[in-house]
């Protein structure tokens, strides 16, 4: 059986490029090195939920139609629309995204990618204050203090810790895996001892204030080697692995970051607690930050989706800037979809703006809050939508989806997801990174090649090909309209 090495996993922003895929009779049968999500995708991509032919809604039901009919009808909808939305782009290749920008310009639509509902606020903050960052390779080899703020890599980026941070052996820093295992064993032993001695466990805290981390920062926060701090509103799986877990009150991240900034700048705070965390503990954390050789903050939706949104990121980046006066520090967003970074990059180098680009005036305009597709949908201004490689039907708030389905909805996706179920025209597409090759950007902006390991099902085209054919048809329809106008004149 042929084994394909160094396959890049097309799921999350980690883009692990060490996957070994075993293929038999044009089917993936075995995966090595991947996480559970990776295995689910590579083994499950051919499941019963796969779409095999283009579908069109007729009399309220999705029925199979020919590719030509679906392309023509989609092109007609897009060419005749005044203010269409082209949304998604994050689970496809940069090559397909490039055609998307061309299509958006041709039809004068709003081009937006999924970062609007994940790290859009981070992009806005970066535009305000810049981004002191580095590659994941630097972190793997050199970082001795790792902070995950408002993110749970164990759930969303399962191999992040193992490949890039605490549990990897770098050139100058070693893996903390063994000490973590020892900690788990010691904790299990302590529990057994307590139960053998029939000592009652302390009463559970009742209110949020009581439950917050009254644990003093441990000695290990100042040890040699890698340290891991997790800051979150609830104890996540990643928090269990951390040397120190800080449970912040919901919507209070901004206060906590600003307090840390003050402490890092040797200022005194006049309060006992900030966001539920005692200032004396924060002082120790600030000391650990300053004493780190090279620290890094990874942040996720816990900062971008809570109160403050992009202001949270702005102060987090400012904290890193402050820390860089004392030591070396970097910050990086934990990007979700495997090529959402690519969607920002392609959109930026083609139109000048990373997301929420409005081409309706014939030139690209960018005004978050106005030209972001979420706001366009909530105002009900869209008159058609094209959704590719994303699932707003499942991941957008109800009112936005309501307005999306009121108008014609074209969906390009390999699977029957919520958006495809709601769509008017549905195109089956080949899986990028499994059935089609392409380029994707890792969360640290490093472009990596995606491999093709099996052939797509018969008649199923890649995203790029479908978009090119729609674009071609749009141009034909537009030129016909132009000719008719000239004749009429």
């Amino acid at each position, binding site marked *: 059986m042929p084994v394909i090495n160094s396959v890049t996993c097309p*799921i999350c922003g980690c883009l692990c490029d060490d996957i070994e895929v075993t293929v038999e009779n044009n089917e993936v049968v075995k995966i090595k090195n991947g996480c*559970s*999500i990776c295995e*689910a*995708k590579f083994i*499950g*991509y051919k*499941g019963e*939920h796969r779409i095999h032919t283009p579908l069109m809604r007729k009399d*309220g039901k999705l029925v199979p139609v020919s590719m030509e009919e679906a392309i023509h009808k989609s092109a007609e909808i897009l060419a005749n629309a005044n203010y269409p939305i082209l949304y998604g782009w994050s689970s496809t290749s940069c090559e397909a995204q490039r055609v998307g920008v061309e299509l958006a310009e041709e039809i004068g639509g709003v081009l937006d990618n999924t970062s*609007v*509902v994940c790290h*859009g*606020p981070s992009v806005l903050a970066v535009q305000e204050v810049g981004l002191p960052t580095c590659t994941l390779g630097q972190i793997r080899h050199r970082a001795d203090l790792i902070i995950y703020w408002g993110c*749970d890599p164990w*759930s*969303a980026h*399962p191999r992040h810790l193992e490949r890039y941070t605490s549990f990897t052996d770098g050139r100058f820093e070693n893996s903390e895996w063994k000490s973590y295992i020892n900690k788990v064993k010691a904790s299990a032993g302590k529990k057994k001892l307590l139960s053998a001695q029939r000592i009652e466990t302390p009463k*559970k*805290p*009742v*209110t949020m204030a009581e*439950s917050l981390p009254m644990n003093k920062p441990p000695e290990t926060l100042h040890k040699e080697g890698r340290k891991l701090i997790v800051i979150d*509103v*609830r*104890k*996540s*799986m990643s*928090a*269990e692995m951390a040397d120190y877990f800080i449970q912040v009150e*919901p*919507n209070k991240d901004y206060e906590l970051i600003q307090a840390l900034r003050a402490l890092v700048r040797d200022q005194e705070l006049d309060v006992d607690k900030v966001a539920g965390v005692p200032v004396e503990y924060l002082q120790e954390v600030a000391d650990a930050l300053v004493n780190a050789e090279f620290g890094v903050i990874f942040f996720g*939706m*816990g900062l*971008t*989706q*809570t109160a403050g949104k*992009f202001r949270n990121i702005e102060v987090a980046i400012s904290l890193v800037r402050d820390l860089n006066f004392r030591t070396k520090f970097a910050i990086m967003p934990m990007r979700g979809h495997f090529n959402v970074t690519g969607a920002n990059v392609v959109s930026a180098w083609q139109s000048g703006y990373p997301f*929420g680009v409005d081409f309706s005036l014939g030139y690209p305009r960018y005004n978050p*809050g106005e030209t*972001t597709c*979420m*706001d366009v949908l*909530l105002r009900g201004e869209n008159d058609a939508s094209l959704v590719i490689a994303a*699932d707003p*039907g*499942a*991941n957008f*708030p*109800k*009112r936005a*989806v*309501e307005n999306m*389905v009121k108008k014609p909805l074209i969906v390009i996706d390999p*699977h*029957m*997801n*919520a958006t495809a*179920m*709601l769509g008017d025209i549905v195109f089956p597409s080949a899986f990028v990174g499994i059935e089609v090759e392409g380029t994707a950007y890792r969360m640290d902006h490093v472009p990596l090649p995606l491999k093709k390991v099996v052939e797509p099902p018969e008649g199923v085209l890649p995203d790029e090909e479908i978009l090119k054919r729609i674009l071609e048809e749009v141009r034909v329809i537009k030129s016909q309209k132009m000719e008719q106008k000239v004749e009429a004149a």
Partner: protein
Amino acid sequence: MMQQKLRVTLLTGRTIEQGVSKERGKSSHDYFEACSMVYMDADDMKKLGIKNGTNVLVTTPNGSVVLKAVKYPRGPTPSLIYIPYGPWANAICSDATSSIGMPSFKGTPAEVEPAPDKPVLSMEELLKSEFGR
């Protein structure tokens, strides 16, 4: 004392089960199981008089949805509920974008009440009831 309703802060987010099942297929039973639930604090569940696995009605100014309550296994999260990303979470989460395009998926107020007799809708049923398709 048992309470009829509980005021909580709603968080939506990723869980590993949601991540794995979305790749298996969104119409799969795994996805339904992973996303049509709500993690609750053990003491909050006691206050409402419900057990692990009882259905609850979660209501926000944006709507309400029936979900299966599951005790959060890793420590206390008083007055905090956590629903994995998916159509069930989005049936109720806030669409206030603060004029930057980002809805408030985390940290908005909600109310939870026991609803042992109400069924949890499947994705098809939920989409049908919300959008008529």
